[in-house]
């Protein structure tokens, strides 16, 4: 990306320094921090890189749909709009976790790993404002990824079933849950970022914990006959569940030999409650950890 040239400053005779009148409000500082961080995501190509990746995968999905429309392939989820949207939305939590890890996993640890912190932390800004500003920008770019993914899905649904078939109310609820899920996932990423000193550790831990560890543990717990109400990934299932016309919250599934297992799926209320719990706990913890962290290196 080509940068705009820096403003040409006026050449004037020596002037006395301009004394900063008084500190701006914490809200103004929050805006400065958030804007600077978004600019950082854009300049490092991290944002456009992930956006491109999501765009390519979603476009491939659309191409598959077009091929199906022309009879070249047969897609099982094209039986109903509900089935299509549910199937499409099921992968959204994974994209959100990836984006949250990418943008939030190193947002705070960078201050204790390189000299960046010594540039920023000597400014007259409360650390909670620094966290909140960076959090807002990580959330903003994560939601941009969600919007791009959802737009492709909407385009696919319109192509396959026509604009009149779109169920707007469940879709809006699903989008609302996606936003809440993004809030929660970015909070977890920020917490790991405040906990670790190496930026890559925060990114990897977020992705591994939220995706690999939680899904594995969730499977084991369900096999043992318990509802995984503590798992954010389980809560993320609600994003797709609200689009499913045949949604059942709890089912008993026969596995052969007269044996049965229980299976749970999060409702919208349950999902929203778990996500809010994650958001409050991990965001608060990340602020507390970051405020107490010392620049020893």
């Amino acid at each position, binding site marked *: 990306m080509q*940068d705009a*040239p*820096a*403003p040409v*400053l*006026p*050449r*004037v005779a*020596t*002037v006395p*320094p*301009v*004394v*900063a*009148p*008084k*500190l*701006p409000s*914490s809200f*103004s*500082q929050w805006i*400065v*921090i958030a804007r*600077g961080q978004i*600019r*950082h995501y854009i*300049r*490092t190509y991290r944002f456009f890189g992930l956006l491109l990746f999501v765009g390519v995968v979603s476009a491939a999905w659309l191409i598959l749909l077009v091929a199906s429309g022309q009879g070249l392939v047969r897609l099982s989820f094209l039986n109903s709009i509900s089935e299509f949207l549910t199937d499409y939305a099921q992968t959204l939590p994974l994209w959100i976790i990836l984006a949250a890890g990418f943008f939030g996993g190193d947002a705070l640890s960078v201050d204790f790993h*390189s*000299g*960046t912190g*010594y*540039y920023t*932390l*000597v*400014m*007259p*800004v*409360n*650390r909670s404002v620094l966290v909140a500003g960076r959090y807002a920008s990580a959330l903003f770019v994560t939601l941009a990824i969600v919007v791009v993914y959802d737009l492709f899905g909407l385009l696919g649904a319109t192509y396959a079933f026509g604009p009149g078939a779109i169920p707007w109310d469940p879709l809006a609820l699903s989008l609302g849950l996606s936003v809440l899920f993004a809030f929660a996932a970015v909070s977890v990423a920020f917490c790991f970022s405040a906990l670790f000193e190496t930026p890559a550790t925060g990114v990897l831990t977020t992705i591994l914990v939220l995706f690999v560890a939680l899904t594995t543990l969730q499977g084991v717990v369900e096999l043992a006959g318990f509802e995984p109400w503590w798992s954010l990934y389980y809560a993320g299932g609600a994003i797709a569940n609200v689009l499913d016309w045949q949604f059942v919250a709890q089912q008993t599934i026969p596995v052969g030999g007269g044996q049965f297992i229980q299976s749970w799926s999060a409702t919208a209320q349950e999902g929203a409650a778990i996500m809010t719990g994650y958001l409050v706990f991990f965001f608060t913890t990340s602020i507390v950890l970051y405020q*107490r962290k*010392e*620049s*020893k*290196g």
Partner: protein
Amino acid sequence: MGSIEVSHLTKCYSPGVPVVHDISFREEGSGAIGYLGPNGAGKSTTLKLLLGLLMPTSGEARLNDFDPVRDRRNALARVGAIIESPEPYPSERVFDALERVGQLRGLDRNGIDDEIDRCHRELHLPPLEWRCGWLSKGERQRVVLAAACLGDPEVLLLDEPTNGMDPAERVEVRGFLKRMKRDHLILMSSHLITDVSAICDRLIFIDKGEIRLHASAEEVAARVRVRAVDVEFARPIATEALEPLQPWAPKVTRLAERRFRLRFDGNEETLTRLLVECQRIGPLSSFTPAVPALEAAYRDIVTEGSVRPE
């Protein structure tokens, strides 16, 4: 005017092992204070405690009479600082990195442009559209010094401000800081004695986490123990001609045709006697301590734990 204060400040990284131990000092008004000591003496730790980057184990640090841990915004509102090796985001343009600081300090659009322009001229900053990741160490250091001075803070805390700069850059920055100290309070730590002696009016020596000396530069010079003098005669002198100095200066080293270094016991009477004896040998061009006073004081503190008592 600004103030810097530490009171019974102690910091332990591991329990019972203080990096800084019960140090106290207060400086206010304007001027430059050199904060000197060997590696690991506790200089950077003190500055980090003052900036709230570390939490004290006991005691307190205050900037402009505010506690940087409890009241961060007010403590750092009128303070500029360079600590360790600060780096703006490598992808950020120099202008953006400075603009961000100006905005966080409350400067308006015109104020930011004027301040960046002033720093650009006074510190010869690299082109403002360059990305910070492209800068050499010296260029980056000038950018972070500009960031520290943006908005004209009352207090500057500078840890090795000329780090990574070439000699010409160091001279420029020394001149800049000498102008700044007229109406700012500067606490500057450095290993470069030449920088400290050129800029600072007052000195604090720290070693093994404890303050060994806190005095004006003149007081330090007066109390320092000179152990070697360089004497230059007006005409060439044979080494044998200096044999009469043997009782007072057991070791004489020829530095040049007319220049010798005389090492002695550090006693003032011996020094006077040496001057008289040298004048007997031949007319003198100069008779000066071999090591600058500040460097000698530094050596005394590092090797003996203190300079000569008053």
